[in-house]
């Protein structure tokens, strides 16, 4: 979802948290988990596994789909003591990062923990927003206005 869009439905809110986890650095996710300080049992539903997702695009950008090429993706699934199952699907091959994100996804689903999980992900959102804003300012400085010369003038 674009930066700055406010998610409305619970599913959109969960997707927003998942997007932050997908773009978080490993140390940011470890810090987030430390801050939540969940001490309950965590059952591994699916050990972290790396595989491929075929990235599809659309002909002309908006037409019928075609297969562009694959990307490495690591997935993990856990269940916490209160029964919530958490999932993570991330670009790349970092198993520990996917496991941490799956646990955060499970914890996010516990209504009493949700505000805490969202709070510990705020630094990630702030970093991503700052990076996007800086990149946008750099890009904006390369905005170009072309003028057409009348032939024969030059």
């Amino acid at each position, binding site marked *: *979802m*674009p930066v*700055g869009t406010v998610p409305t439905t619970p*599913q959109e809110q969960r*997707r927003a948290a*998942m*997007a932050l986890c*997908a*773009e978080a650095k490993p140390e940011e996710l470890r810090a987030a988990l430390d801050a939540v300080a969940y001490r309950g049992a965590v059952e591994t539903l699916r050990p972290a*596994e*790396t*595989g*491929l*997702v*075929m*990235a*599809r*695009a*659309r*002909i*002309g*950008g*908006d*037409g*019928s*789909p*075609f*297969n*562009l*090429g*694959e*990307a*490495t*993706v690591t*997935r993990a*699934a856990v269940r916490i003591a209160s029964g919530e*199952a958490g*999932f993570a*699907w*991330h*670009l*790349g*091959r970092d198993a520990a990062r996917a496991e941490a994100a799956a646990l955060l996804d499970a914890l996010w689903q516990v209504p009493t923990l949700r505000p805490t999980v969202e709070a510990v992900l705020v630094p990630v959102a702030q970093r991503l927003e700052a990076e*996007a*804003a*800086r*990149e*946008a*300012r*750099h*890009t*904006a*400085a*390369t*905005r*170009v*206005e*072309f*003028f*057409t010369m009348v032939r024969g003038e030059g």
Partner: protein
Amino acid sequence: MYVAVKGGEAAIANAHRLLAHVRRGDPAVPELGLEQIAEQLALAVDRVMTEGSLYDRELAALALKQARGDLVEAVFLLRACRTTLPRFGHSAPLDTGRMAVRRRISATYKDLPGGQVLGPTFDYTHRLLDFTLAAGLPPPPPAEAPAEPDAPMPRVTDLLADESLIEPSPPEQPGAPVGDLTREPVSYPTGRDTRLQALARGDEGFVLALGYSTQRGYGRTHPFVGEIRAGAVMLEFVPEELGFPVPLGRIALTECQMVTQFKGSGERPPQFTRGYGLAFGGCERKAMAMALVDRSLRARELGEEATAPAQDEEFVLAHCDSLQATGFVEHLKLPHHVDFQAELELVRRLRAEHAARQAATPPMLQEAAE
């Protein structure tokens, strides 16, 4: 024909040890880290990901390091790595309309909605070697300007669509299979989906040369760059257990919309047609060449006479893959001793027969024949 050989194990093992030694180079020179390759040789990494058909910057950097910078060898390594991994499925189609744009230019409109931003480009540089880089001097910080938040950047191809001056993209047929040449061998005639997949993986040099050939008159298409945009797009995947699209992370892409004159046919009025190119990372030249060749390969669909190599899908698709090409060309290095012995025998016999015929012909006739 290649006949299997055995032996040479010790020599082969020692050759590979020697390769590892030579790869490292002078130990007094600091060793390259994968992060250095990924950061500072980013476009080589992008090309290896695009042609290796695997988006993973770290693996592509490792492949480049292992291949001593040989791009085709690095593509080979990445493709081999890919075969060891299970496939979880396919992504939701990428929406390049929601790209966080780092570069966006059009050669057809100077004042297009959202404007043109050059981004980090080699364009308009003087191509003079920069010796401050050789000296390792830090670059000046990039300039900054206020950015309009979420300024819409409609596709240039949408701007002409209202008047039907430009053809629309082919509409999605729900439930229709999407060609995948990694799963099914290519059969001809192919669909545009399979062609685009093959071109995306295809060797940049080959696709570039074919695109160039269309400009020089071998299947003339008179193209314009409607738009090039580059930036990051969120990749999403719908896991079965969740049933909604999960954001996997953002990938960098370069997209090219090529716009081409079309005189019209019995069925279709004159309008602009399109060629499409898309590549991982910053492979802009590749995306442009791909868009040219995508358009030229639509000759049959558009009722154009197909006379040039770039209009022949079997020629293009069968030869655009660097891995297949290098495999067949480079296998010529492997021992062909048995095969060559047979050829040697054949040539000896033919020479003997030739000499016998010469000897049997009277000298007068020999002169007349000359």
